């Protein structure tokens, strides 16, 4: 990696010599070691070495970018020549800019080298336990990888930020099958800095596998009702991502975001506090440098239900007049509530434990609908049976204001720390 680290500076210098007014370059060098288990066997060991070098130039407010995956002098020169053509072809936009001067910094976290023998033995223990504890569970694909990512950002304002992050990730996709009865597939992903604990103890993976073996026989809900829906942490992530999308550049710049006029206004129940925390020490994943070339920070998005920040980049900020977010989103943390999950379930007269949501892209106005997967019907305070062919529908704006309770318990999968949240007024429709 040492030779490649000079590429961003070379690109910026090349562009300045070619007469551009502002230049920036972002380098990502990644080295991955991956072991795959598929069906009933170890299937593949994969090692990859890749580069992504993004070069951006601005001249007379005309901006263009090119991305290559080479760092040799010839490739850099070619990329710069092509970029000059693209800038020349472009059109002026006064909002384009690069990040302002910041002190040079280097950040690092996690192991640089994989422990391949330990990776294999941890995965072997994992599949061995699945065979023993959950014999009806088919592991469609389990991938354990270690990735080392070196990132570097430099620009013509003298910014020089770089980071090196090593981490392990586990992705498991599974289905239970008994005779001809098949459960819906389910999956889980966790991120960790080390392999000190058993893989099944990470995040919610063991609970999800246990649930799957009880989901080979499912029942459609025989009616349509508006009721309480408890959304699990795995499922909640999708709804939070939807909320976050409405706060990003495109819907904000086009004025189509349902929250465009809601800054510092209450948009959710006062018990909801949501942060994007790429620097959290509680999370194994994260990032140190934002996409637009700033040292990353943690962002409070919702504070006791009040919208405190959009998720705008420098460009989005200059376009809309709102402040730039200090994070680039993701790595979401929701504050826990004060009820136990057990009590939350007990309080439901008729509702759903929504464990996975297979939904259409939410509409511009916040409407969503989709299928409840790997989920359970709750009746008279008890989890009754796993459901099939059951749909849920609602509106994200209304949903955030219809929180009944938030659990004390949370799940940390390295990417997020989220509780269970119960919402009221969601339409549940059966067959």
């Amino acid at each position, binding site marked *: 990696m040492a030779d490649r680290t000079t590429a961003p500076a070379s690109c910026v210098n090349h562009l300045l010599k070619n007469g551009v007014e502002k230049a920036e370059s972002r380098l990502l060098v990644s080295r991955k070691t991956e072991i795959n288990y598929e069906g009933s066997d*170890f299937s593949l060991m994969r090692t990859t*070495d890749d580069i992504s070098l993004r070069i951006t130039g601005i001249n007379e407010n005309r901006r263009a970018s090119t991305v290559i995956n080479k760092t040799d002098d010839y490739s850099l020169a070619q990329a710069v020549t092509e970029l000059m053509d693209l800038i020349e072809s472009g059109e002026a936009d006064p909002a384009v800019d690069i990040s302002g001067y910041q002190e040079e910094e280097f950040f690092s976290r996690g192991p640089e080298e994989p422990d391949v023998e330990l990776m*294999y033995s941890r995965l072997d223990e994992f599949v061995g336990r699945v065979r023993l504890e959950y014999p009806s569970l088919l592991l*469609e694909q389990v991938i354990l990888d270690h990735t080392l990512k070196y990132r570097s950002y430099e620009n013509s304002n003298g910014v020089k930020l770089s980071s090196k992050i090593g981490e392990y990730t586990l992705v498991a996709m599974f289905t239970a099958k008994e005779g001809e009865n098949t459960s*819906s597939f389910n999956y889980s992903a966790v991120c960790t800095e080390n392999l000190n604990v058993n893989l099944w103890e990470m995040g919610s993976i063991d609970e999800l596998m246990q649930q799957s073996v009880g989901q080979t026989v499912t029942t459609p809900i025989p009616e349509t009702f508006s009721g309480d829906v408890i959304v699990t942490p795995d499922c909640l992530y999708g709804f939070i991502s939807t909320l976050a999308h409405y706060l990003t550049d495109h819907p904000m*710049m086009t004025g189509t975001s349902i929250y465009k006029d809601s800054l510092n206004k209450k948009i959710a129940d006062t018990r909801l506090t949501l942060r994007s925390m790429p620097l959290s020490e509680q999370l194994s994943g994260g990032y140190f440098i934002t996409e637009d070339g700033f040292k990353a920070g943690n962002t409070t998005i919702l504070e006791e239900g009040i919208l405190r920040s959009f998720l705008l980049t420098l460009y989005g900020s200059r376009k809309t007049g709102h402040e730039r977010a200090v994070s680039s989103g993701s790595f979401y943390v929701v504050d826990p509530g004060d009820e136990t999950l057990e009590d939350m379930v007990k309080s439901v007269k008729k509702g759903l434990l929504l464990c996975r949501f*297979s939904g259409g892209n939410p*509409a511009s106005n916040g409407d969503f609908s989709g299928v409840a997967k790997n989920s359970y019907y709750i009746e008279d305070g008890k989890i009754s049976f796993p459901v099939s062919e059951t*749909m849920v529908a609602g509106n994200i704006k209304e949903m955030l204001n219809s929180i009944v309770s938030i659990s004390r318990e949370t799940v940390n999968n390295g990417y997020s720390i989220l509780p269970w949240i119960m919402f009221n007024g969601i339409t549940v429709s059966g067959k």
Partner: protein
Amino acid sequence: MKINNLKGYKDLFRGYTELRVQENRSTSVSIVDGTLMGNSRNSESGVSARCWKMGSWGFASSSELNSDAIKHVISAASFNADFLNKKADKNLGDLPGGHGFGEWDHSFKGTPLTQKQIIDFLRDIDGYMEKSFPLLVSRTVAMNSLDMEKQVLTSGGSGAWSLTPRTLVYAVLTVDSPAGPVELYDSLGGRGQPSAVLIDPSEFYGKLGRLYEHLLKKAEGIHPRAGIADCILDADLAGILSHEAIGHTTEADCVRGGSVAGDCLGRSVATPLVTLIDYANTAHGETCPVPVYVDDEGIPAKDVTIIENGVLKGFMHNRESALEFNADPTGNARAYKFSDEPLIRMRNTAIVPGSSSLEEMISSIEDGYYLMKSSNGQADATSEFMFGVVQGYEIKNGKLGRALKDMTISGVAFDVLKTVSAVSGDMKWECGGMCGKKQPIPVGMGGPAIKCRVNIGGK
């Protein structure tokens, strides 16, 4: 880098080995509300090798493209396969054969468009939208093109080179309504480089005009009634049903993973009106949106008849699943980037046209829905599916009625196909599809319209 340049490395192969050199080149331009916001070109290239050792695969890749890098990835892939083989001790036999040769070049042979010409093309469309669609509160027009250039050499003797381009123009239109913003989008274009697809912007006006009309109706649209309903799924939705809900369950690795299709081979899974094929490269005498002639394992690609007259007939295979299922490889092994290993992927999946007309099908429904365009779709091992629907109309007494707001439909595909009572005689390909399964990959999907019963999600 052509085939002859790679052959010299064949002596380094130890056992079954694939060597692939690949470059993905893309161009992106986007204009949002009249402002040029995206103006970029990307190029990613490199080399990878994959080795098979008695049931264990080893894979390695490098973004460098020189002799040392090629030697390194061959050696590293072999090392990785040995590592796993010593641990896993699967002791499987040789992979089944099949060797493909040839060169397939779908590139444009004239002068390529410059970036300026592409921007001007989109600027024309943007100007047309601004001038002709007065009620818009936001408009986006964007173009993405992708050239995938691959060269594959295998230890068995396969040698193939292909360049498969795709150029798509997206238009996103938004109007206001009392319930908030309402959006509709469409993708135009298909196989070919920008120079072959972006010929005359006025050719797009008609389709954009119809999109705007649908959007205005949608802004005054209704939520459908929740529950099971008679529906016409137009080509876009019939295609996504074929791909997501049936196609994925019949990929042999998904069958091995427990998909419900594994128990249904030879059984009736649909009405006899349904024949479903994953076309390799040519359908009904025309080149498909994503033609594959030799796959990334060097296997000559052939059509896979998944359902024939309602009976489940076959699965899609790579070499490894063919060995496991005692079947022939079908040429479905494809990788997205040079650093990706080939997976079993669909190519161009569609139901074969029938004999009904769309008009007859609509007039046969007393109370139901005509569903035209999907936003996204997901399905699982049970064949239970969910599709977002962004454009559709109610049908009342055989006639189209009010437009529908965004909605979701669902069902169990093998049950839904048993309700198919009509298949239209026309055939439309939607070639904007990008399928996700560990890696993304361009796919073609489409077909005729079908009449069936599905579950409508609604309030």
